[in-house]
């Protein structure tokens, strides 16, 4: 299938866009849905009695229903945020600060994106709870032995990324969640890199909190989702205060709105939710099975081609079943930023740097990588362009490399 034709940026520009792990391009249907909302239905939701405002409210709340159904949650459990980072901060502030004390432990995987790591450092500093890490093995995977060694009866929060945005490792989150629960811990699952590629069922996973960004799954920028189990969200204090999240406001105190509004202060991003709904429609129309099949072929092809270049280091598991659509690599002796600039000159967009995962890169013993990340609109031709550009980059540096 040719999905590229649905994506105006990819039609208009002759590029191999291999940075979907950072943000995806948007299909015409998402762009149209956002445009239609602003052209026909825009008003401040929840605040007006006139029909236009009611239309905006409906657009927003119907979007919430769609998102809830998409991840198999109930609507009160779906909080709209501006991105995954805000969703994860919400958990750290509203759950972490109130529920942890100095004899407790927070356990994170070393693969966490800074957004599920730095907030917990803050919680640790404020509450005195100890911060511990689960490390990966030589195959860039997290062993259950390591999980069981680190999660103890003292552990109150476990932060785990479903798929690493650096190594592409798919963590066995179901097993980790079950184990954490057996120790009485609450699990904060980051599905930012998995929900674009695979079905996420929060009930089946039984995670307590689940965070992701819309912009990595075809939706517009500026929209993210936090799922939280109702019994947890109900007991938590609000994260942000202000309009729309209240019930009665007196001079000296306030009672708060019920879920989910309690966690949604201020005028919300209706256009973003509308775009997210259209993104879900697009993904469902294609189907996760087809996305996975297509990406599997592409990634296998890319790994096969790149592995043949003996000057390349790949930072990924050799078990394809545990690896998603992200390939981190380096040309030995050449800095990733130089590689990315040369690739850019060939119309190949990859990210270079530490990918907001400095502790992971430090643990692996490097300071940056090039990262090619794939999505449904990528083609074998994109992979060929990547490989040709990598070969070109190596040739430019070859004669200067210290042997």
């Amino acid at each position: 299938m040719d999905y590229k034709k649905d994506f105006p940026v990819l039609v208009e520009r002759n590029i191999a866009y291999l940075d979907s792990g950072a943000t995806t391009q948007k299909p015409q249907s998402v762009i149209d849905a956002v445009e239609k909302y602003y052209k026909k239905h825009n008003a401040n939701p929840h605040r007006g009695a006139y029909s236009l405002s009611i239309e905006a409210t409906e657009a927003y709340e119907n979007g919430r229903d769609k998102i809830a159904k998409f991840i198999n949650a109930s609507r009160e459990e779906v909080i709209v945020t501006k991105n995954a980072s805000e969703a994860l901060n919400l958990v750290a502030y509203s759950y972490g600060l109130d529920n942890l004390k100095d004899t407790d432990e927070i356990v994170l995987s070393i693969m966490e994106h800074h957004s599920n790591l730095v907030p917990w450092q803050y919680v640790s500093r404020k509450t005195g709870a100890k911060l511990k890490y689960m490390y990966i093995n030589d195959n860039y995977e997290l062993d259950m032995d390591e999980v069981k060694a680190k999660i103890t009866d003292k552990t109150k929060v476990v932060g785990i990324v479903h798929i690493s945005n650096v190594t592409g490792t798919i963590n066995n989150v179901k097993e980790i969640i079950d184990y954490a629960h057996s120790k009485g811990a609450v699990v904060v699952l980051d599905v930012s890199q998995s929900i674009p590629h695979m079905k996420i069922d929060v009930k089946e996973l039984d995670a307590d909190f689940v965070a992701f960004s819309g912009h990595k799954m075809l939706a517009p920028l500026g929209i993210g989702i936090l799922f939280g189990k109702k019994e947890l969200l109900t007991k938590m204090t609000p994260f942000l205060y202000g309009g729309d999240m209240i019930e009665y406001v007196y001079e000296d105190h306030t009672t708060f709105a019920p879920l989910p509004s309690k966690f949604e202060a201020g005028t919300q991003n209706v256009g973003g939710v509308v775009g997210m709904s259209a993104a879900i429609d697009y993904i469902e129309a294609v189907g996760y099975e087809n996305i996975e099949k297509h990406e599997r072929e592409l990634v296998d092809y890319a790994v096969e081609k790149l592995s043949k270049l003996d000057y390349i280091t790949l930072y990924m598991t050799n078990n394809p079943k545990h690896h998603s659509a992200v390939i981190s690599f380096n040309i030995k002796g050449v800095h990733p930023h130089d590689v990315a600039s040369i690739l850019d000159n060939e119309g190949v967009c990859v990210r270079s740097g530490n990918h907001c995962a400095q502790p992971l890169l430090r643990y692996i013993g490097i300071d940056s990588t090039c990262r090619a990340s794939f999505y449904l609109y990528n083609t074998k031709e994109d992979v060929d362009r990547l490989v040709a550009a990598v070969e070109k980059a190596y040739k430019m540096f070859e004669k200067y490399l210290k042997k």
Partner: protein
Amino acid sequence: MDNLEEMYNEIIMEHSMNSYNKKKLSSHDFCDLGHNPNCGDEIEIEVKLNGDVIEDMAFSGHGCAISQSSTSVMIDVLKGKTVKEAKEIIATFIGMIKREITDEEELEKLEDAIAFKNISNMPARVKCALLAWHTMEDILKKLEEGEK
């Protein structure tokens, strides 16, 4: 950029991959670390003075070819210059990168550092080229303020 090889030219490649300026001095008067948190580049610059003349310089650290070579070339250019001359050269280099100074004659005092002129065509890499020069600017500022 039309011709990337123009940017990754002989001077830049040689200086980035095999620089004789990448070492430690046996003693220095000033030393400062320049870093770019976005990309992780870190460059430590050592300066040894003799009166108001820059007698020797060296650097250590890691980063991309642009930041490494820019540091090494800067050392070649600034060594043997007075502090006042060095400040002028740094200002000229920064002006060239920002395309504020284009006068060929004025740019001549940059010697080999003129090789970085086209970096302004690669906006994502400008900060790499400037890292060492900004660090050196800070060192000279500290020197003027009389602190060691």
